[in-house]
């Protein structure tokens, strides 16, 4: 009987799980399949509800949303290229979009080309239905993308567009952007006596290598307390910048005879030649002595618990970590973010439509992209994700609703004009005392404050490694595995085993001897 009950219980469990799967079948309403980064939109359930009512208001129809997530660009690329997934909108990073365009896997949106946009986007629906939100997008992003990704050649062998040069601007709508910088524990830096603008601005990326900018150790306290991101691209960029400012590239030329020191930030991080790769490899190998480890997911916790003091981080993650690090006792944030002055990396994520999309979902796709570019939605995303939404700050400032959401998120009273003014000043003109710039809005801060010696050109956009990808992976593999050998471990264990076995033998021998003597007597 007991057995029967337990078998029944297991069967019930299996049935339950199966029903859950089966229950997820399609409804008759319009549908949209969204493929986004995990934790990369404000409250998913609420977003779905809001978008549904927005969609209903615009088209009079219902929409069903399937929301799928990925955690690296690589998993996303693999799924799109090798799998048979049919998703409608995807949100990859700029270099992944470049790869998708090269493989001719994206549908042009012409979002920034008014004429084509109207023609393509409003093929079958009255154009007045659509809120045209492309103008809301930050101009600086469009300039940067046009500069770096203006001419992408479609290289897919099986494509009829092979050899065609296209601009990424025709394929994506920017969603979020941010910079690559250094997240550090301010309290620890104060303790070590290196928390001042002059020291940090001299060290720049050297902070990650415990180098004060002149080839000397920044602080002995940092040794063994530095985290490096377990990401090939970001580590590569940071290392190249470090090499540049520490003089490691002085008087060196690339294969075309151009000096590395004369290149712009963008040119330099996209120059992946063998010389540079060799230098990066060695620098990363040497850095290992200074490291606490390579950060995968636990960077923030390690910084807060004091296990590590420095981490290579993206601005949004850093922002999130900083805001979580409020210390009641000292009435200050324990963590801080530093965007090195010399050079840096700026990146973008945006929405694209893969060629495998379902044409029946076209309306929903268009409206979803438009929806995300609404100021109040952008404000919610800004609060939730921590990265900068790709909407012009002026658009947010002009939208009362969006400002309300932001102010409430930062615990200011939106009904009090004084508090609102204070909040606006804090959020949009915020200036970091160490790096003297507003790292939430790098484009604006470069314009407003010209003597912060941050030139927007010093932030480079990174392309895909292309055919050098393999070499970079090999170099990274090499740097990661170098310097650690398990051989001494084997030696010590062998010694320990020999000692133990020897002791046991000795005891046995002594016992035998004793019993032998007994017998003799």
């Amino acid at each position, binding site marked *: 009987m007991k057995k029967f009950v337990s078998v029944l219980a297991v069967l019930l469990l299996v049935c339950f799980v199966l029903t859950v799967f089966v229950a997820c079948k399609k409804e008759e309403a319009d549908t949209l399949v969204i493929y986004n980064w995990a934790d990369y939109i404000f409250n998913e359930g609420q977003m779905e509800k809001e978008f549904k009512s927005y969609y209903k208001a615009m088209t009079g129809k219902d929409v069903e949303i399937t929301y799928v997530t990925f955690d*690296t660009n*690589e*998993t996303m*690329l*693999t799924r799109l*290229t090798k799998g048979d997934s049919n998703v409608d909108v995807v949100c990859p990073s700029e270099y992944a979009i470049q*790869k998708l365009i090269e493989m001719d896997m994206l549908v042009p949106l012409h979002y920034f080309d008014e004429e084509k946009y109207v023609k393509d986007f409003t093929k079958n629906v009255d154009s007045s239905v659509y809120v045209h939100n492309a103008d809301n997008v930050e101009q600086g992003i469009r300039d940067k993308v046009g500069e770096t990704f203006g001419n992408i050649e479609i290289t897919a*062998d099986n494509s009829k567009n092979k050899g065609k040069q296209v601009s990424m601007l025709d394929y994506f709508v920017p969603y979020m952007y941010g910079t690559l910088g250094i997240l550090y524990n301010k309290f620890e830096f104060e303790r070590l006596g290196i928390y001042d603008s002059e020291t940090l601005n001299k060290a720049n990326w050297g902070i990650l290598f415990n180098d004060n900018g002149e080839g000397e150790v920044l602080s002995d306290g940092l040794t*063994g307390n530095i*985290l490096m991101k*377990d*990401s*090939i691209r970001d580590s590569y960029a940071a290392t190249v910048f470090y090499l540049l400012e520490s003089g490691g590239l002085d008087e060196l030329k690339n294969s075309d005879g151009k000096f590395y020191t004369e290149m712009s930030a963008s040119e330099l991080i996209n120059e992946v030649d063998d010389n540079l790769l060799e230098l990066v490899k060695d620098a990363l190998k040497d850095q*290992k002595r200074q*490291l*606490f*480890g*390579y*950060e*995968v997911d636990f960077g923030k916790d*390690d910084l807060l*618990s004091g*296990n590590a003091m420095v981490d290579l981080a993206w601005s949004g993650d850093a922002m999130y970590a900083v805001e979580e690090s409020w210390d009641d006792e000292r009435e200050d944030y324990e963590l801080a973010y530093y965007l090195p002055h010399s050079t840096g990396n700026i990146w973008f994520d945006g929405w694209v439509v893969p060629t495998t999309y379902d044409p029946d979902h076209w309306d929903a796709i268009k409206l979803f992209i438009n929806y995300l570019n609404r100021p109040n939605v952008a404000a919610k995303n800004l609060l939730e994700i921590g990265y900068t939404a790709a909407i012009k700050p002026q658009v947010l400032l002009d939208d009362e609703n969006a400002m309300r959401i932001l102010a409430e998120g930062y615990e200011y009273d939106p009904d009090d004009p004084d508090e609102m003014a204070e909040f606006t000043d804090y959020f949009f003109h915020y200036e970091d005392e160490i790096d003297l710039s507003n790292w939430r809005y790098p484009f604006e801060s470069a314009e407003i404050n010209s003597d912060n010696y941050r030139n927007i050109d010093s932030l480079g956009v990174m392309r895909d490694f292309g055919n050098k*990808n*393999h070499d970079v*992976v*090999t*170099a*990274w*593999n*090499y740097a*990661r*595995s*170098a310097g*650690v*050998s*398990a*051989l*001494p*471990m*084997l030696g010590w*264990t062998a010694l320990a*085993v020999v000692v*133990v076995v020897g002791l046991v033998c000795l005891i*046995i021998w002594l*016992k035998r001897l004793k*019993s032998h003597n007994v017998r003799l007597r």
Partner: protein
Amino acid sequence: MKRKFRFRLTRRAFAYPYMIFLLLFVVVPLVIILINAFLDENSKLTFANFVEFFSDAGGGLTVLGNSLIIGLVTTLICLVIGYPCAYFLAKYHASSRVFVLMFILPMWVNFLIRTLSTKAIFMALNVKLGMGTVMFGMVYNYLPYMILPLHTTLVSIDHSYIEAAEDLGADKMAVFLKTILPLSLPGIVSGITMTFIPAISTFAISEILSGSKIFLFGDAINMHFSKTTNSFGVGSVMSLVMLVLVVVANVIVNLTSKDEEATSVL
């Protein structure tokens, strides 16, 4: 004369679902790995992946060496600690139920949670993460896999053998060396297999307990698949190497074990 296929609900039919499952999720993926190992980025036939791995261009062989050594050391330590433990647990079998439970209990908790807690303890004690902490974590995680087969074998040894040995004048040491140890050999062999094989392919434990500074073979394979898009080939070669190692380990263990039933655990 065509023989029609008719589905009959025999006892054998109940095995089909699992057979199909095995085919789909074990055999097919293995074939895909095998094919991928011979393909380059553009899906053309190549041997370059093998050349790249075996020429140690990306330090792959060094990583493999490290993994093997760590696996070996873990197994050795587990055996040295596990055997006496299993021995005494078996000896006081009746009263040791609770102790056996204490060894199994941690296995019910997810190993990631256990490892993260281990890290937290080390951090609280101000222990520097490195090879030592990784070894600790490995031994801690795989010790039950060593103790359980040993315990099972030791418990099932017929006590009359031991009594007979004692009757024939063997002292305690001789009873152990000449009777118990040889009879528990199957347990030792299956314990070693069950520890060594997962130990050489581990990567989560080493990642967490060394702050990712110790890069093992599992990490290397993981990197080729999840951190890049066009080096599946080399990753597949590495997976195949891993598979060959596991098979070789099994064969060696089977050969050295006199009792073939011993490895039936696997």
